[in-house]
């Protein structure tokens, strides 16, 4: 999976040593003491985390490290036992998920949530914020919302053509391939004009032919001034596009740093190898592949 033009990496993001919980020069998301337990099992226990603004941060770690749970907590889809966090200085603790999205922090899901019973275009239009026609009373008077709906459609079509989905705009989303659905979900998230885009395993299950364009889209987000935080197992992708890598294991952040250095850290190697013994074979095989991928590059 080689790439001709290496993307422009953002560097010099942190203050002091690149250690877990280190300060960032310009953080967009700051989280403190986030803890979540499920029946005695600690799923997430993050002391401090800062996500650098206008950069691409990767969140990696073995299965069960608590990455998706952390995602759910930060986006209000789950409530932590303790902890506070804020987006650009606005506290998000206890804020319901839909308000988090309204504030500009939008997410995608590991299992894609393209709405199969709506057309691709309808999916896109759902993303747009502050629609007059989405109010129950004004919905009955098309004169109020028709003009705005047309504008939203133009924006949606433009995004769809960027994501090469414009030919499919009138198809039901259920008819798309897995990779196309991932693209649609990302495009739909962009309809909300986010400042922070959180992608949960954007490459999982995507046809290799589509990975390159997905990568380009993620890089594009940064060019347009957005911040990206993504969970990924594919080490190629992490190394290729991430400006900063946060490594989680057993709910804690064990390492942070630029991709080239952080992958070599003993704590990261331990995190991936350490939990070997007590997991079942299926998971181990998956993990070995990841390490090999990392080692080859």
């Amino acid at each position, binding site marked *: 999976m080689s790439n001709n033009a290496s993307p422009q990496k953002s560097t010099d993001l942190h203050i002091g040593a690149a250690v877990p919980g280190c300060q960032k020069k310009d953080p967009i998301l700051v989280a403190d003491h986030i803890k979540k337990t499920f029946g005695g099992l600690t799923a997430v226990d993050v002391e401090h985390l800062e996500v650098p603004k206008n950069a691409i941060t990767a969140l990696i770690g073995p299965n069960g490290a608590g990455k998706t749970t952390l995602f759910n907590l930060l986006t209000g889809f789950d409530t932590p036992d303790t902890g506070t966090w804020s987006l650009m200085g606005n506290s998000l603790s206890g804020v319901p998920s839909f308000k988090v*999205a309204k504030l500009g922090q*939008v997410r995608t899901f590991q299992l894609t*949530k393209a709405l199969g019973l*709506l057309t691709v275009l309808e999916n896109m239009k*759902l993303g747009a914020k502050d629609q007059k026609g989405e109010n129950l009373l004004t*919905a009955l008077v098309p004169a109020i919302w028709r003009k705005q709906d047309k504008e939203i459609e133009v924006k949606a079509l433009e995004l769809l053509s960027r994501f090469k989905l414009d030919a499919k705009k009138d198809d039901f989303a259920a008819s798309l391939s897995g990779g196309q659905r991932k693209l649609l979900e990302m495009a739909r998230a962009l309809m909300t004009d986010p400042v922070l885009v959180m992608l949960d395993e954007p490459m999982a299950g995507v046809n290799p032919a589509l990975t390159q364009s997905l990568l380009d889209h993620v890089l594009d987000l940064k060019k347009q001034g957005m911040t990206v935080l993504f969970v990924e197992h594919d080490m190629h992708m992490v190394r290729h596009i991430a400006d900063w890598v946060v490594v989680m294991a057993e709910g804690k952040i064990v390492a942070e740093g630029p991709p080239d250095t952080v992958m070599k850290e003993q704590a990261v190697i331990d995190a991936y190898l350490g939990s070997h013994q007590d997991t079942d074979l299926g998971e181990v095989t998956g993990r070995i592949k990841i390490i090999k991928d990392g080692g080859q590059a």
Partner: protein
Amino acid sequence: MDWGSILNNTLQGLLTPTTLAFSLAALGLAMHFGFAGLLNFGIAGFMAIGGYGYAIAVLTFGLPWWAGMLFGIVGSIIFALILGIPTLRLRGDYLAIVTIASAEIIRLLFLTTAFTDVTGSADGLFGFNTRTDGSGFQNANPLPAGSYGAGPFTYNEQTLWVLIFGIIMLVVGVVLLWALMRSPWGRVIKGIREDEDAIRALGKNVFAYKMQALVIGGVYGAMGGIVYATFANVSPGVFVTSLTFFIWTSLLLGGAATILGPVIGSILFWTLQAFLTNVLSEVAISGILPVSTTQASTLRFVLVGVGLMLLVIYRPQGIFGDKRELTFVK
């Protein structure tokens, strides 16, 4: 077998106040289940509140008929809000059980002897459509006394007035539902039906939308109960769980996620009921089958049950539904 009278009676079933009333309720269920994905098995409760609210407002509070109807509708809105707060966060199958229980609570409250003065207990309420002070629904009837129509469609002025009122309500209901579902609001509702987390992640207040859908569908249900009450007594024996199931059957027959499906489904269902009632009793009387007339009328409900099973197994999208817009997503 007197096919002439069977045909005549069946044709009468095409346009009756009952069909109109239950069509409105089925539209409400289409809003709840077909579009918003809410498994409401308490539509009979909404109908009871509409019908009783209207009757009680007229009989106990002495309101004129139109204010009584508004009272019934307000009652259903309050019921939807009270029901929605604890239940809309529940998973689908829990919602089904809780709504069915709520409708039964409502029915038992109307049935109990504790409030006989207001609710009439098991006898129900009657005599609220024609009032001595001229404020009743039939007092507002502009039609001169007489016989209207022809053949099986012959009505007296009272029935015709009920039919006209019911048809107006149904047409308004269909148009409003159509206007809502083609709007961006309807888009959000359809999205919620499929995956509420996806909609939440896009910054929409899913709970508020579900609540709005519950209230709107509930108002349709209450209107169904009100139209029913304009021609019949309201009693606890009407708004039973089986009524909910019959309305579900007519909804699924026509297609849950369509606008006209619930109406056509209801007409088909109740016409078929009229047909079966007549045919089966003829069969029993003429001795073609060795059954009593009571047994013959029981067979009708056996057929409804079997029909519902076959429908859901083999054609879940209904007669008019699009397989791709199938509602049973989860």
